[in-house]
């Protein structure tokens, strides 16, 4: 029974540990896709504060643009496709360098962008000569400057998720900024990259024939929230893209890595970032070569952040990480202690059983049984006990796993692309369009996932548990058998008498 309890505990801990690993794997897959072994990104140093110096996030609206309404306000509608904040790009030579590294099985790329659409009205500064160089304290409206007849609107923070920020009403302005994430995907390689962790829910996926065409595939959550459907259109950077497919995450995450996916060449031309990419996804020929490829990538692309699955796993924080650490530390030691105790109990029971059976073994020796016959008999019985203990332990373990899964605690996993290990896998962002501040990159690029932790007893774990029980039985059998073999028949029978 001791052996059974030990095996049950080991099986339960292993199953929970396996569940944690699966959850980690799901988080990783949701971040950069199934099949990707290494991800290469470049991350800019975050701005110290929201000073609005990033020209990529400005709307430069000419003084004569838009229409002036009856109240003297100028009405604008502007759409831009910009590089996702905090992201830098690789040129073609960098991608080629990655492809040429030994041991690389496949390379695909993507360009992560943010679509910004400005709709609204501003006071007609060009005509009434008002200056907006100073802003009112407490206003959420970002600075609006009008040097030499040009209005400049700079949102402080650009989220990657599809959000609509309602503008303020300072100076009689009334506008909104709609943002969503757009990912240009390489259509030449499949099975690796961000789309590999998605499932098609309607329409179709990209084909190579889609290169150069204005077609888009949408994340199902985004499509639902915007009431967009197949054969409809979505406006990206002022261009209408035909929606050909809707995707959902194939992992436990609610959303995929981007709101909208378009062909890479379209993303590059619309964002005026020709021939560049923001992410390089590398698949290794063999898992044993991943570390060497990562080293070679770091040498070939010294400015890049090269992250393997293991690196990314180390950036996962939150309760999933806590659970993982708990399982790794407490669970492992608990298993070792439980198993050691179980083994000792099994050995103790067997040797005390031998003592109890002194008369029996003494009699068998008197009948002519040699010591090896006795050892074999005790060991065989002990192994049978081990198997029985293993089976009972596995049953108890399964019951424990079932109870654990009935409660299925929800754990939270968070990743930070600025972690020391190097991330750069931009997920969905947080924060509204004006959620500025020094930490805006982190808030925009980090990802948090809620996962129901499920323990999973694989055949390997079950086999290991039974093997441990067998080992316990054999150990007990060896100790007990040796003790039985040492019995001298005359003394055994005399002590019984």
């Amino acid at each position: 029974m001791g052996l059974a309890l030990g095996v049950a505990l080991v099986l339960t801990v292993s199953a929970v540990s396996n569940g944690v690993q699966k959850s980690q794997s799901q988080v990783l897959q949701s971040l950069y896709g199934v099949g990707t072994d290494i991800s290469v990104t470049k991350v800019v140093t975050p701005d110290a504060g929201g000073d609005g110096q990033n020209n990529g996030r400005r709307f430069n609206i000419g003084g004569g643009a838009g229409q002036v309404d009856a109240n003297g306000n100028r009405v604008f509608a502007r759409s831009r496709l910009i590089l996702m904040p905090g992201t830098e790009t690789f040129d073609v030579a960098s991608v080629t360098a990655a492809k040429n590294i030994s041991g690389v099985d496949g390379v695909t790329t993507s360009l992560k962008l943010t679509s910004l659409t400005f709709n609204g009205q501003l006071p007609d500064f060009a005509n009434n000569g008002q200056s907006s160089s100073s802003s009112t304290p407490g206003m959420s409206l970002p600075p609006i400057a009008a040097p030499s007849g040009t209005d400049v609107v700079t949102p402080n923070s650009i989220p990657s998720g599809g959000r609509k920020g309602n503008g303020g009403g300072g100076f009689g302005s009334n506008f909104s900024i709609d943002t969503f994430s757009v990912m240009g995907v390489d259509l030449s390689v499949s099975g690796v990259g961000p789309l590999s962790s998605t499932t098609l829910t309607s329409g179709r996926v990209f084909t190579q024939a889609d290169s150069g065409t204005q077609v888009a595939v949408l994340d199902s959550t985004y499509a639902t929230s915007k009431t967009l459907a197949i054969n409809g259109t979505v406006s990206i950077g002022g261009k209408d893209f035909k929606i050909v497919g809707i995707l959902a995450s194939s992992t436990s995450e609610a959303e995929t890595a981007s709101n909208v996916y378009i062909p890479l060449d379209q993303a590059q031309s619309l964002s005026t970032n020709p021939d560049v990419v923001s992410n390089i996804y590398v698949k290794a020929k063999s898992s044993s070569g991943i570390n060497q490829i990562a080293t070679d990538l770091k040498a070939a692309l010294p400015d890049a952040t090269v992250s393997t699955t293991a690196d990314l796993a180390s950036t996962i924080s939150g309760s999933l990480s806590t659970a993982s650490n708990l399982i790794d530390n407490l669970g492992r030691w608990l298993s070792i202690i439980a198993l050691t105790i179980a083994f000792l109990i099994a050995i103790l029971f067997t040797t005390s059983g031998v003592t109890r059976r002194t008369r029996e073994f003494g009699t068998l020796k008197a009948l002519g049984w040699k010591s090896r016959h006795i050892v074999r008999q005790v060991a065989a019985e002990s192994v049978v006990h081990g198997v029985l203990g293993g089976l009972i332990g596995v049953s108890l373990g399964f019951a424990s796993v079932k109870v654990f899964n009935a409660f299925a605690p929800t754990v939270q996993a968070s990743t930070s692309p600025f972690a020391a290990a190097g991330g750069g896998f931009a997920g969905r962002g947080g924060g509204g369009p004006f959620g500025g501040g020094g930490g805006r990159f982190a808030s925009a690029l980090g990802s948090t996932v809620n996962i129901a932790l499920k323990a999973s007893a694989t055949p390997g774990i079950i086999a290991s548990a039974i093997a441990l029980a067998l080992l316990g039985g054999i150990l007990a059998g060896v100790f007990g058998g040796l003790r039985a073999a040492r019995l001298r028949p005359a003394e055994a029978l005399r002590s019984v008498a």
Partner: protein
Amino acid sequence: MSNLYELSHVVKTYSKGRGEKITALSDVNLVIQSGEHIAIQGPTGGGKSTLLQMLGALDRPTSGEVIFDGDDLAKKSDGSLSSVRAKSIGFVFQNYNLVPTLSALENVEASLAPLGMSKKTRESSALEVLNAVGLSERIHHLPAELSGGQQQRVAIARAMVKKPRVILADEPTGNLDEATRDEIMDLLEKLRVDEGITLIIVTHDTSVAKRVQRRLKIHNGVVTEVK
């Protein structure tokens, strides 16, 4: 008749600790011929069981010779003594000493296990001898499901099944009522005659001792013939 046992100047001492020694057998000289029926009597602690252990190759003397069938048991290794016991010596104990988790048939088969026989041969031999002791209807019963007399019959069958040269019985009727005692003694006597086996019985029971050809008395480790 040939000599089965020749004991010469056999001494057996046990250490009691602190240098103190107990002499269980003191210069025993004894010859036992094949086919004899012998009873050994004596007070408790007199050395009966020790003598039986020497005769049964369960122990070696401290000094002296125990010649069995031409071989000195005192000079044999543990493994060789096991082989002698397995082939030539059968034991019957006062408390039967059956393995409680084995059936009557399996208990008898256990006696043949060290001889390297096939399972089928072991089983047929065990069935034959269980039938001879009148237990053919009880072969699958566990010891706990048998009466004392039936258990002792199984023990006798276990001793007989290997067709030994000698059966050593230590108080074989000590736990039995008178009627059952007589049945068991009749059975042992019949088997001895039928199989030509030497039968040596240690007993306190005078009525049992009176049934044998030769009576030995052992007191303070010294063996004497009872006339």
